[in-house]
């Protein structure tokens, strides 16, 4: 209970008074009362938030775990099945493919935006502060602001047979490559990934460029003096200095990839087949169309754990000691 500035716990009778008053003066009664009880009364401040969190997050979370141990159609009586639902999640071919899909999306949602963002950041170093810079920032943030659903609809049009992508390909004479990108088995998942890249790229670029502008220029001068080329410079100066920003980008985008729902729902509904189905979509389907609440819940628990397993190491690696 001591603050950074070293004041003695309140109510102990010797608390230094602000304004340099004599610390030996007896403390007024209301201060004494505050010191003893406030730490408990303080819970009243936290309680409303905790209640909402408890009722609408913790309780459902516990229930998800409970449901996952039963076979239940949402209406009739539930039947205890132990870990059968989890067994299904980890052995069913389709479900495994669906989980794999989410990991493939990480490449597009996380790795590509961070790599491209780093490239732009190390070349630009800082976005100009003038109106041009503001414009660039504003535009690059647009995909973050619009509903993901709208991004899904926009891109399903851009990637359709008559869409912009095929139009551009035709203009440069690549007629034979044109196809309904979201409709074909081989291209559907990467195409959904491209939508994710489009959404995340601006955020990552701006985060990284902002981080970049905080790096001390003398570090680069020193590197150049030592005869480092642009590539060595990148690995010796840029990458270590941006560790925290890279960690943030990876955390945000990996969660977005694993828990994706909106984009897939509107652009492909998971098709063709289950080619682009992701865990989030499958949970929705299992729970609300197929009435397999138990299996949906098991998949939900697995999804939650997958997110943690992916995000915690990123946090540990990049937050730890900042270089």
């Amino acid at each position, binding site marked *: 209970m001591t603050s950074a500035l070293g004041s003695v716990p309140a109510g102990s009778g010797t608390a230094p*008074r*602000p304004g340099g008053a004599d610390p030996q003066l007896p403390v007024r009664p209301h*201060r004494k009362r*505050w010191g003893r009880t406030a*730490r*408990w009364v*303080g819970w009243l*401040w*936290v309680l*409303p*938030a*905790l209640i909402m*969190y408890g009722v*609408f*997050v*913790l*309780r*459902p979370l516990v229930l*998800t775990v409970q*449901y996952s141990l039963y076979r239940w159609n949402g209406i009739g009586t539930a039947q205890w099945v132990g870990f059968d639902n989890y067994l299904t999640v980890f052995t069913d071919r389709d479900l495994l493919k669906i989980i794999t899909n989410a990991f493939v999306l990480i490449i597009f949602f996380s790795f590509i935006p961070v790599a491209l963002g780093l490239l732009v950041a*190390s*070349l*630009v*170093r800082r976005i100009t502060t003038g109106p041009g810079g503001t414009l*660039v*920032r504003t535009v690059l*943030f*647009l*995909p973050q*602001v*619009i*509903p*993901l*659903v709208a991004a899904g*609809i*926009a*891109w399903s*049009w*851009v990637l359709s047979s*008559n869409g912009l992508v095929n*139009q551009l390909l035709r203009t440069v004479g690549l007629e034979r490559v044109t196809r309904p990108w979201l409709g074909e088995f081989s291209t559907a998942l990467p195409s959904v990934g491209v939508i994710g890249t*489009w959404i995340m790229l601006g955020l990552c*670029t701006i*985060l990284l460029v902002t981080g970049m502008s905080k790096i001390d220029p003398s570090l680069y001068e020193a590197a*150049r003096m030592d005869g480092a080329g*642009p590539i060595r410079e990148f690995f010796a100066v840029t990458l270590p200095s941006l560790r925290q920003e890279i960690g*943030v980008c990876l*955390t*945000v985008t990996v*969660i977005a990839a694993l828990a994706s729902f*909106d984009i897939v729902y*509107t652009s492909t509904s998971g098709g063709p087949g289950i080619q682009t189905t992701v*865990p*989030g979509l499958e*949970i*929705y389907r299992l729970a609300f169309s197929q009435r397999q609440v138990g299996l949906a819940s098991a998949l*939900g628990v697995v*999804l*939650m754990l997958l*997110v943690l397993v992916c995000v915690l190491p990123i946090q540990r690696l990049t937050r730890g000691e900042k270089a």
Partner: protein
Amino acid sequence: MNLTSRSERVSGRIFLIALVVVTLLPFLSMLSAALQPRGTVPTGLAWPSDPQWGNFVDAFTAANMGALLKSSMLIVAGVVPIAVLIATMAGFGLGHLRVAGGHLAFGLLLLGLTLPFEAVVTPLYYQMRDLGLLNTRWAIILPLIGLYMPFAVFWMRAHFTNVPRELSEAARVDGSNTWQLFWRVHVPLARPAIASLTILLFLWTWNQFLLAIVMVDDATKRTMAGALGAFQGQWGTDLVLLCAGSLLILTPTLIVFVIFQRQFIKALLQGSVKG
């Protein structure tokens, strides 16, 4: 040496401009499709010879935009003020008053920070059904407040942890109680943090899709994003109208974004850094 760095800068600029163009193209492509005559099959990006601005009027009526706007605003009005208030209070209690055992409460909240909504949406549905709230806006409002708590409290606590405790000591000597202290001293000081949080929660609520389609069947009682899902289901084959409707549904967020652009970008950057 100067020369290489200059050519690097130029290629950086080119990359940046390319990024801007790629970001804008889907919007332009949608706009060009939305302006084609109804019933035609548009191609990628072609400015129509006779732009049909009337399509937006049709889409406005077809999507029942007036009702949608009202519904989204009601949901935002139900979620954001309460969520911001109770998160600010909790952040104050945990970060400044440092209640006994506060770290336990905080740890519990941290659990929810990376939680995908999909993991709790099923039990939430049955919970809302048992409360008789399905197909009402409450079924979106109440869970959202709860689901925002981990981030919102984390955010406000981070602010209050950095406020010097001497500030409260001084106010206490003046004889104000904790409640007055909170409203007169700490809330005014926390305004930037509160503003950023408000912007983020507004955006997340407005764009919330999953809860909207699970809890509410009637599109006119959903959020904007949820309504767009229904609009797509209904008009998915009429590409011209779908594009016009999507752009209309985008517009309110875009307007708010352009007005509060500076604060928005700051909030989003800080939000992702802290989240």
